[in-house]
C-alpha cells in the first residue's frame, strides 16, 4: 500500500518559536487516523500547513506521491485534500442547499460557469440531495445558515467538506462545542464515509478518538511523540505523562 498523504520533515517557525518540528506523518489509503495532543501542541498549525493556509519553513508534503508543498490552498482541494474547521467557517447568507450546491458544482468542475443556473444540472441536484440526506439536513435545506442551531451548523461544516468529494479528509475537532445529544449525528455522518476516503481526525475528545481511529499519532510541542494503535497509545506511559497534567489525566 502506498501512502496517500505523507509529510517529510515538516517544520514551521514563527520567529524564534518552533510550532511544528520535523513532523513525519504517513496515511495509507482508507486509513482512519487520529492526531491527538494537549492544548498548544501545534495541531491546528499542522492542519494549516497540510491545507496550504500556512507555508512550511522546511520539509515537504506529498499527496498521492506528488509534492504539493507549494501548491495553493484551492489546488490542494481540487486534488482531493479537504478539511473542516475547528470553528465553523460557513456562508451565513447562504442556505445549506446553496452551500452544498456550490461545493458540488466545484467538484464537478462547473464553478466557472457564468451562464447556467446552479440547479440546471441533474448531477448537481443529485449530489446535493445525497450529501444533505446523509447529514440529515434536508429538512432545513432552505433555511438561512446563520439562523441554524449550532449543532446543525456543525453538521453542515462537515457536509460541505464531504460535498467536495475528498480523498483525504482532515477533520479538525468535528465535535467541538457540540452538545451531547447532537453528537451522534456527527459521528454517524463521519462513520458513513466511503471506505476509500482517508480520514485524519484531530481531536481532543478521547472517547471519540478511541471509537473511531485505527491508528493514533500524538503531537507534543510541535513534534510527533509517538504513533500506534489505540491500545498501544493507551498503554504508552509517555502519553499518559503528557496527559496527566491536563484534563484527561
Amino acid at each position, binding site marked *: 500500500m502506498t501512502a496517500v498523504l505523507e509529510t517529510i520533515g515538516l517544520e514551521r517557525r514563527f520567529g524564534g518559536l518552533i510550532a511544528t518540528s520535523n513532523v513525519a506523518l504517513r496515511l495509507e489509503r482508507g486509513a482512519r487516523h487520529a492526531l491527538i495532543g494537549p492544548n498548544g501542541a501545534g495541531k491546528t498549525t499542522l492542519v494549516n500547513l497540510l*491545507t496550504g*493556509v500556512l507555508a512550511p519553513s522546511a520539509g515537504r508534503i506529498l499527496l498521492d506521491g506528488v509534492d504539493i508543498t507549494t501548491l*495553493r*490552498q*484551492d*489546488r490542494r*482541494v*481540487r486534488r482531493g485534500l*479537504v*478539511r473542516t*474547521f475547528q470553528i465553523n*467557517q*460557513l*456562508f*451565513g*447568507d*447562504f*442556505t445549506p*442547499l*446553496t452551500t452544498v*450546491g*456550490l*461545493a458540488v*458544482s*466545484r*467538484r464537478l468542475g*462547473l*464553478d*466557472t*460557469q*457564468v*451562464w*447556467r*443556473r*446552479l*440547479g*440546471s444540472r441533474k448531477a*448537481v*441536484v*443529485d449530489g*446535493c*440531495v445525497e450529501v*444533505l*440526506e446523509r447529514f440529515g439536513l*434536508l429538512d432545513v*435545506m*432552505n433555511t438561512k445558515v446563520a439562523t441554524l442551531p449550532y449543532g446543525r451548523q456543525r453538521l453542515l461544516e462537515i457536509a*460541505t*467538506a464531504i*460535498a*467536495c468529494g475528498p480523498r483525504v479528509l482532515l477533520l479538525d475537532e468535528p465535535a467541538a462545542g457540540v452538545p451531547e445529544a447532537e453528537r451522534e449525528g456527527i459521528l454517524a455522518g463521519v462513520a458513513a464515509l466511503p471506505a476509500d476516503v482517508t480520514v485524519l481526525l484531530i481531536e481532543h475528545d478521547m472517547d471519540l478518538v478511541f471509537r473511531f481511529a485505527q491508528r493514533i499519532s500524538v503531537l507534543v510541542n510541535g513534534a510527533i511523540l509517538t504513533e500506534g494503535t489505540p491500545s498501544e497509545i493507551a498503554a504508552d506511559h509517555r502519553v499518559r505523562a503528557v496527559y496527566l497534567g491536563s484534563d484527561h489525566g
Partner: protein
Amino acid sequence: MRAAAQAALADLGRWRWPEVAFWVAAWGSWLLLPEQHLLLNEVAILGLFALSLDLVLGFAGIISLGHAAFFGCGAYVAGILARLGWGDPVLGLLAAGLVAMGLGFVTSFLVLRGSDLTRLMVTLSVSLVLFEVANRMAWLTGGADGLQGMVVGPVLGWFAFDIFGSVAYAYSLVVLFGLFLVARRVMHSPFGLSVRAVKGNALRTAAIGIPVNGRLVAIYTMAAGYAGVAGGLLAQTTQFVSLDVIAFHRSADVMLTLVLGGVGYLYGGLIGALVFKWAQSWLSDLTPEYWQFWIGLVFVALVVIGRERVFGWPAAVLRRIAR
C-alpha cells in the same frame, strides 16, 4: 425531496413579480414621462454605474471609493473615439467597456489584500492618480477645460440623439437592461455564487477548492467593464467629457447611491439612483442653494432610524393588504 431541492435551486433565479413590475415601469417611463427623459437618462447611467459597484461591493465585498476610475476611463475612451471620427455609439461603447475592463484587470491585483480601509484608500488612490494623468494629458483629454469636438453618430446608424433626450434615454435603458440581465444571469450561476461565497467567507471558499483571488480578479474586471460602459454612455449622450467624470465626488456619489438603495441584490443601485437623482433634482429646483442640507438629512435619518424601518413600511402595508 429531490424534487424539492431541484425546485428550490431552480427558484433562485426566478423572476418575481416586483422585478417584472420594476422593468415594466422603467420601460413605461419612456412612453409616459417624455418630459423627464433627460433626468431619467442620468438615472439609467448612474444606475448602471451603481450596479457595477454593487458587483464589487455587494457581491464580492470589496469596498471601493475610486470606482470613478473606470467610469472616467470609459467616458474618455468613448469621447476620444468620437472626437477622432469614430462616432458610432455602439462601437464606442464596446471600446469603452473593453478598455475599462483592461484597466480593471490590471488594478484588480491591488485590491486582493487588505482591510476595508486599505482597499478604500487603494481604490481612491488609483482614481486620484488617473485623475492627475487625465489632467496632465491635456493634448488628449482636453485637461481641465474638458474634451471638445465630439461628434457622435446616430445609434445603429438610425436614431440620432435628439435634444429631448428621448433617444438617449432609450439607448441608455436598452444598454442598462441588457447588462442587468447579464449581471443577473451571472450572479445566479455557480460562478456568481462562488463570488458571493468569497464575500461570505474567503477561508471556506478556498477550502472548497475555489480560487479566491481569481474570483475577485474576474468580478472586479467585469464590474470595471460595466462602469466603463456607464461612462461611455454619459460621454455619448452628453457629447462632452470633463475631468468631473473621474473626480472624487463621482466615486463618492456612486457609493452613496448604492448604499442608499442597499447592497447585494442588484436592484439597490438602480433604486438608489432613482431616489438620489430624483431627490437631488427635486430639492435643487426647490432650493438651489441648500438642497444638500435636505439630502444630508435624508441620509442621516435613513441610517439613524434604520433603512428597514424607512423602506420597510410600504412592504409591510402590502403584506397586510395581500393577507
